[in-house]
């Protein structure tokens, strides 16, 4: 095992059971600081349950994990302070303005009011939303909402950001702009943990893991996975692995 400083996520035999059902079955992996980590799996493969554990929202049944330097059992509150989260469904408050949303989320992460002001101005400028700062978020197109949501998810400079299908339904150009933002966040040292149904996006990740039936079946760089299975795209790799799932019903 590498030194903890180099890893923002280490999980060892992490398991979650609900009664007889093992949703997540002893997954073991590590994620480096600043890495873009793709977390793939079919619906029902256990992705959501795993993410909930990693975010400190639900306690594992067994196994160990250290997230952002904190123990998953003993320090879930510290974990929450040091991560960011955004999902397809997490779409800001439509009835608050762009500025108010930024202020609110910066506020709940305990940023000082001068900091909030500075970052809010910088963020609005970066996204080109100067003319929209005082408009309600509900009026923005989906792609902009998602970009804004991502910017807000990392406003407190978290060590890790979890992205759950962040680009679902977004047009192809905006989707690429979104990935541009992910890259620059990773370049600043933020670890990115991302799920997606667009398998071409899996190619943008540094490493990709594939969950099948609660187990982590494989984990490697996209190139290595394609070479290993001798398939041309990540889509083919995914189909090849997931099609053998027993939990399809």
């Amino acid at each position, binding site marked *: 095992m590498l030194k903890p400083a180099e890893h923002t996520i280490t999980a060892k035999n992490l398991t979650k059971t609900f009664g007889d059902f093992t949703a997540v079955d002893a997954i073991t992996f590590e994620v480096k600081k600043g890495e873009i980590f793709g977390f793939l799996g*079919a*619906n029902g493969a256990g992705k959501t349950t795993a993410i909930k554990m990693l975010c400190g929202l639900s306690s594992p049944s067994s196994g160990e994990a250290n997230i952002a330097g904190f123990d998953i059992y003993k320090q879930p509150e510290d974990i929450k302070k040091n991560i960011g989260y955004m999902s397809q469904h997490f779409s800001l408050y439509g009835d608050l303005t762009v500025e108010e949303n930024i202020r609110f989320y910066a506020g709940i992460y305990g940023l000082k009011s001068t900091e909030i002001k500075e970052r809010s101005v910088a963020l609005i400028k970066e996204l080109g939303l100067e003319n*929209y700062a005082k408009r309600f978020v509900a009026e923005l197109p989906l792609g902009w909402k998602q970009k804004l949501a991502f910017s807000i998810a990392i406003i407190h400079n978290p060590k890790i950001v979890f992205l759950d299908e962040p680009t679902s339904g977004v*047009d192809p*150009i905006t989707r690429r702009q979104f990935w541009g933002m992910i890259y620059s966040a990773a*370049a600043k040292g933020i670890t990115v943990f991302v799920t997606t149904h667009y398998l071409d996006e899996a190619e*943008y990740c540094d490493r990709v893991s594939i969950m099948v039936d609660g187990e982590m079946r494989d984990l490697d760089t996209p190139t290595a996975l394609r070479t290993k299975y001798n398939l041309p795209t990540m889509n083919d790799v*995914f189909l090849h692995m997931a099609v053998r799932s027993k939990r399809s019903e």
Partner: protein
Amino acid sequence: MVEFHNINKSYGENEAVKDVSFSVGEGELFGLIGPDGAGKSTLFRILTTVLLADSGNVLFNGKDVVADYKYIRENVGYMPGKFSLYQDLSVTENLKFFATIFNTTIDENYELIKDIYQQLEPFGNRKAGALSGGMKQKLALSCALIHKPKVLVLDEPTFGVDAVSRKEFWDMLKSLKAKGVTILVSTPYMDEAELCDRIALIQKGRILDINTPKGIVEQFERQLFIVSNVAIYPALQALENNPATQNAYSFGQEIHVYADEITSANAIKQVLENGGLKNPEVSVGTPNIEDCFMDLMVRGNLEESAHA
């Protein structure tokens, strides 16, 4: 079979659909391809008589969807975008209910849904809410088919569904098409476009292009260069800073550059090397649907900007 003529529809100030016309032939598998908010659901709702257009008209088998709405309702099978069945009813109960309200029985049209429904039968008593995403989809499709509609209208049936279930779903559509069902389907996934007979690319309520997937690709008006063996983001930055190569988009480990006819592979190589990238590989490639969509978006100035 289905003809849209100059359809307009606004919600308040928001123009959801603007002057859309297209037609779908009998037995065709027609795809409406575009992101969320492009106007796909609005068009389908107008066709299925659930929504009225502000102007323009839609004909279904020669009948107007407003005046003859009853005829359309009897002959269309519709699966709405957010449709999720009755969660507290079992698989059999759901199907039985939809069969009855459409004045038919499961037995009567069993032949049409047999292949799909057989996969569900082992779970006949399970509540729809307890099914997996893929299974729910199959049940929803069975419910939409139960009255043997002439036209099947599916609004984003594969949205948020994993790649395996999506593939299965498209296989089902293919076999339905073989049985002669006309199918209109919408999707935000560009890779599904290739599975349709003809497609309409739609963005911000406007049709960008209508053609066969092959025809759309052939109409790509620019040169496509594929850049590989580079670090994606530095390369993108280098390319975007040059006006001749500014339409550069990542595709996995490669970058696609849309350039005009006078640009050469060597010129692009030069741009990359000037940007500090070593040994980039540049070759001429054939575009896919997503390339065409993005190129049309850029040229139609229909990027999703906040300056709507």
